C-alpha cells in the first residue's frame, strides 16, 4: 500500500498526513538497515582469517555433538547479505513492508555474527544458550500475554508484577501443603498440580479486585495497579519473614521437573534445545498459539478488540463491554499468577522475597515491543531471554564484556520501538479509559 491513492472524481488526491509520515519513516528505516548491511561487510573484511567453532549436542548433553567450523568474517558476510537485501527491499517497497516480520530474517544473523566475533578463537557449545533463552522467556512472555489481553479489552494491567509475586508465594505454600498433607508419594505428584492452580486462582483474585476498582469505581488503573504491586510486595514479604521463615516446611514445595517429549526430544540438535525443558515451556507455546487464534480469528476475540478500541460502538451492537472486561482481567490474572508459580516451583525452588524481580515490568515492555500481538510478544520475550543467556555464556567462556551492557540491550531496543524511531506501534485506543455503560 503506497501512499498515492487513486484519483477520485477527477480531483487531486489528498495524501493523508499519516500516510506521508509512514512513508518517510519507512525510507529512513530502509536507509538505516542498508547502512547496517554495509557495516557488516566492513566488519567481515577484517576477520576472515580468524576461527570460531560452534558445537551443538546432538541428543544428550555431554554426548555426541555437531560441529560448525567458521570464522567471524563468514558470519558477518551472511549478516551483511541478509541485512542488505532487507534494506533494499524496504527502500523499494516503502511503508508496505511489514518490517517487524523482516526483523526475523536479518536480526538473528547479526546476533550470531556478534557472538562469533566475541568468541573468536574459542570452541563454544551453544545448546544451552538457546534452551536457556527459551526458559528465561517463559515468565516474561506469559506476563506479556496477560497484559495484552487486558489492554485489548480496554484495561491496563500494571499489576502483572504483583500477580506474579503473589502467584509465586501461593504456589509454594499450596504445593508444600499438598506435600505435607498427602505425604511424600501422593504429594510429589499432587503438588505440581495444586501449586500452579492456586497460583492462577490468586492471580485471578487480584485481577478481580483491579477490575472491580476500575469498572465499578472508575479508579485510575495506573494508580490502583501501582498500589496492588506495592501491596503484593508487602504482603509476600510479610508472609516470608513472619510465617515461612518459622514454618519452613510450608516453603518446601515439590518441584516441577524437566520432561523429555517422546520422539521430538531425540531430534538431532533441535531436541535438546526445544523438547527437553519443563512443562511450563510447552504450556507457554500452547498459550501463544491459542491466544493468537482466539484474539484474531474468533467472535470472542473480535468482541475483545472492539471493547478496547471503541466500547461505545461495541455496546450499540449488543456487546456487554463490562462483562468482557471482567473476563479479560480474570483470564489475565490467571495467566500472570500461573507464570508466578514458575518462579517458585521450577528447579530447586522455594519462595524468596521479591523473587519476581521486575519480570512483570519487563513483560509489559515485551508486550509493547511485540505490538500487542501474542507472537510478537513471545518474540520480544525471547530477545530479553537471549540477552540474559548470551551474557551468561560469554562470562562462562571468559569473554570480558560488562554484564550490564548486554542486559540493557533489550531495553534500549524497547525504548527505540516505543519512541517510534523505527516504526510506530499503536495499542488499543481506549486502553485505560473508564467505560460508562449507557
Amino acid at each position, binding site marked *: 500500500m503506497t501512499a498515492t491513492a487513486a484519483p477520485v472524481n477527477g480531483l487531486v488526491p489528498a495524501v493523508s498526513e499519516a500516510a506521508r509520515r509512514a512513508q518517510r519513516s519507512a525510507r529512513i528505516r530502509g536507509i538505516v538497515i542498508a547502512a547496517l548491511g554495509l557495516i557488516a561487510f566492513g566488519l567481515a573484511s577484517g576477520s576472515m582469517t580468524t576461527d570460531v567453532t560452534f558445537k551443538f*549436542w546432538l541428543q544428550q*548433553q*555431554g554426548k555426541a555433538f555437531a560441529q560448525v567450523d567458521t570464522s567471524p568474517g563468514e558470519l558477518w558476510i551472511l549478516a551483511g547479505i541478509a541485512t542488505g537485501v532487507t534494506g533494499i527491499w524496504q527502500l523499494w517497497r516503502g511503508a508496505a513492508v511489514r518490517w517487524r516480520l523482516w526483523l526475523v530474517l536479518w536480526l538473528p544473523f547479526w546476533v550470531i555474527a556478534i557472538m562469533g566475533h566475541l568468541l573468536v578463537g574459542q570452541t*563454544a*557449545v551453544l*545448546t*544451552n*544458550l538457546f*534452551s*536457556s533463552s527459551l*526458559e*528465561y522467556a517463559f515468565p516474561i512472555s506469559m506476563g506479556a500475554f496477560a497484559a495484552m489481553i487486558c489492554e485489548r479489552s480496554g484495561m491496563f494491567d500494571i499489576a502483572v508484577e504483583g500477580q506474579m509475586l503473589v502467584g509465586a508465594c501461593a504456589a509454594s505454600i499450596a504445593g508444600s501443603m499438598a*506435600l*505435607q498433607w498427602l505425604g*511424600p508419594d501422593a504429594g510429589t505428584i499432587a503438588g505440581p498440580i495444586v501449586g500452579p492452580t492456586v497460583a492462577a486462582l490468586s492471580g485471578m483474585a487480584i485481577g478481580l479486585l483491579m477490575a472491580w*476498582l476500575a469498572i465499578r*469505581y*472508575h*479508579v*485510575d488503573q495506573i*494508580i*490502583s495497579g501501582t*498500589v*496492588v504491586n*506495592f*501491596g503484593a*510486595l*508487602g*504482603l509476600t*514479604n*510479610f508472609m*516470608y*519473614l*513472619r510465617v515461612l*521463615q*518459622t514454618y*519452613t*516446611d510450608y516453603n*518446601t514445595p515439590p518441584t516441577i521437573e524437566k520432561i523429555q517429549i517422546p520422539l521430538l526430544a531425540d531430534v538431532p540438535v533441535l531436541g535438546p534445545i526445544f523438547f527437553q525443558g519443563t512443562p511450563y515451556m510447552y504450556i507457554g507455546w500452547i498459550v501463544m498459539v491459542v491466544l493468537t487464534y482466539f484474539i484474531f480469528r474468533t467472535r470472542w476475540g473480535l468482541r475483545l478488540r472492539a471493547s478496547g478500541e471503541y466500547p461505545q460502538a461495541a455496546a450499540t451492537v449488543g456487546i456487554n463491554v463490562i462483562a468482557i472486561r471482567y473476563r479479560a482481567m480474570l483470564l489475565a490474572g490467571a495467566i500472570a499468577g500461573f507464570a508466578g508459580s514458575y*518462579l517458585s516451583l*521450577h*528447579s*530447586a*525452588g*522455594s519462595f*524468596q*522475597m*521479591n*523473587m519476581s*524481580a521486575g519480570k512483570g515490568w519487563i513483560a509489559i515492555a515485551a508486550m509493547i515491543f511485540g505490538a500487542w500481538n501474542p507472537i510478537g510478544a513471545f518474540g520480544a520475550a525471547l530477545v530479553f531471554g537471549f540477552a540474559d543467556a548470551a551474557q*551468561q*555464556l560469554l*562470562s*562462562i*567462556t*571468559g569473554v*570480558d564484556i560488562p*554484564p*550490564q551492557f548486554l*542486559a540493557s540491550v533489550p531495553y534500549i531496543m524497547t525504548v527505540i520501538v516505543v519512541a517510534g524511531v523505527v516504526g510506530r506501534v499503536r495499542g488499543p485506543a481506549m486502553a485505560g479509559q473508564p467505560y460508562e455503560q449507557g
Partner: protein
Amino acid sequence: MQVSKRLVALGATTAIIISACSGSSATTAPSAAASAAPTAAATAAASAAASAAASTAPSGAAASQNTNWVACVAFDTGGLGDKGFNDLAKKGLDEATAMGMTTHYSEAKGSTDYAANIQRLLDQGCQSIIAVGFNQQQAVQTAALANPKVDFGLVDSTWDPSGPDGKVGTADDIAQPANFTGLDFQIDQAAMLAGYLVGGWSKTGIMGTFGGQQFPGVTRFMDGYYAGIKYWDQEKGASVKLLGWDAVNQTGTFVNGDNPWGDAAKGESLASGFVDQGADVVGPVAGSTGNGSIKFMQSKGLWAIGVDTDQAISLPQYASAILTSAQKVIDAAVLDTFKANANGTAFAGGNYEGTLANGGVTISPFHDFDSQISADLKAGIDALKAKLIDGSVTVKDYLK
C-alpha cells in the same frame, strides 16, 4: 469520584502498613550458602550430625581458662533451625555451657527488634554477646559503643568504621572499640583445598564457579578454588581449568540482577552452561541460586562444591552430588571468642580470624565420597593443608 479517592487512599495506606510490618529486612543478607532449604526428611538427627562433623575445632589451652563468665548469643530472625550459621553458633554456645559458663540466648522477632533483643541480653547480665547475621551489624555496633564494659562479637563480619555518613575515610569515622570482635574467616584457605580436590577428582579437567554478586565475601571462595586448581596443575603438571572466575583480572560469572541469591532456576541454567562447556564440578557461591546448580549436577550424575556450611548436611537431598564444602566453623569461632573474652585477652587486630590453623575454616567431611577419593588425593590435600598452616604456601601466591 469521592468513593474512588477514598478507596485508593485506603489501598495505599494498607499497602504502606503491610510493607512497614515486613520492615527494612527486604535487603537479604547475602550469606553465600543456602540460608535454609530444609526438607521434611531433614531431622534433628541430621543437625546433630552437622554438629559432630563440624567439631574439628581445637579446644585450646583449657588449663587456665576462666569459666566464671556469662556468654550470650543474639540470633537473627527465624535463624534457629537453619542448619547453618545460627545452629552452629548455638552449638558453640552449648559448648560454652558445657565448659561451665553461664549462657543465655535470644532470637530477634523481626528486623526492628535487633536492638531490643540485644538489650534483653544486657539486662540478663551478659558479659559477652555475639550476634549472628549481617543484618545485625548496626544494632551491635551501637550497643558496643554504648556498653564499653560488655564484649560484643559479630559472626562473619568486621567493624564498619564508616560512621553516620556511610563513607570510610571521612571525619565522622568511628574506630573499632576494644570491646568489639569481628568473627572473620579466611575461607579462601579452605576453598583452596576444595579446588585442589577438584583438580584430582574432575574427569573432564574443568570446574565451573559463579557468584551471586561480586562481593569480597563471595570472590574469596572463587579465589580459593582458582588457587587450589593452579596448585594442583603445578604439582602434577596437569592442565585443569576453572571457568567462571579469572582471579588475575578479578572478572567472572555472577548472577546479578534483582534476585541474585534466590533464583534457583538461573542456578540450574548456569550449571547447565558450565556443563555445556565441559565442566563436571560446579562450585556455586550464590545462596539459594546455588541450590538449583547442585540439583542440576545431581540430576546429571556430576558433582558440586558447597559453601559456608557443610551443605551435604544442610541440603541432605543433594548430598549425593556434594563432594565437600568450603566451610566456616562458626561453633569453634564462637567458643574461641567467648574464651578470649573471659580471659580478658584480645585477638591480634581486634578480630577473630578463622584459619585452617585454628580450625576456624575447613573442608567438610567427604561423606558418601569418602571411599571414592583415593588415598593419594587425600594425602595431597593433607600436605597442602599443612603447608597453608605453616605459611609455606599462601593463597595469594597462586592468584597470579
